[in-house]
């Protein structure tokens, strides 16, 4: 399981659990990062940052996106 790409994760179930909100995109970013898909991780973190509702979360997610793009 750990070696399988993110496509093997049940994205639909995760989305249903978390909703189409910033945490869903943040989790998606983390999973992409675990798969070594850094550009996709950065895009997901950036989408999460655009939807964040607190300054602390927004700043953290922007940092995560910038770090993943490096």
């Amino acid at each position, binding site marked *: 399981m750990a070696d399988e790409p993110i496509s093997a994760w049940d994205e639909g179930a995760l989305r249903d659990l978390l909703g189409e909100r910033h945490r869903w995109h943040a989790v998606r970013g983390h999973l992409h990062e675990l798969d070594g898909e850094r550009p996709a991780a950065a895009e997901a973190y*950036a989408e999460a940052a655009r939807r964040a509702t607190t300054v602390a979360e927004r700043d953290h997610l*922007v940092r995560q996106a910038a770090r993943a793009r490096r």
Partner: protein
Amino acid sequence: MPKYLLLKHYSGGPEPHHPFPPMDQWAPEDVEAHMAFLRQVKTLLQENGEYVDGQALTQAQTWVRYGGPDAAPVTTDGPLPETSDLVAGWYMVDVESRERAIELAAYISSEPGPGGGPLYEWIDVREVMSGKSSSED
């Protein structure tokens, strides 16, 4: 003393001094420098006694209007955020003069951008009307 709203925009405003990508595409150290500068702006304003308020807004925009008698409010996301004027946040400052408000806005606009140089971001400076509004009499 007059109060001014110094508005930062996600989009809209005059032609940018130079194009720059969203912050999530900057180098991590440039992101840190930018955030540290904005923290320092708040501290500076507070130490000067010029700080009234500062807030950031989420990007989700909902326009609402009265729907008419016995009708639900009408809402729309409005024009696409990419093409419309969208406020990102503000500082409310209490200053000696308009010149000081402009000086502060220019200082905020010098915030470091990608590569560490000034962002030259346009800041929307609006004076708050003094005195009570007629509805408060």
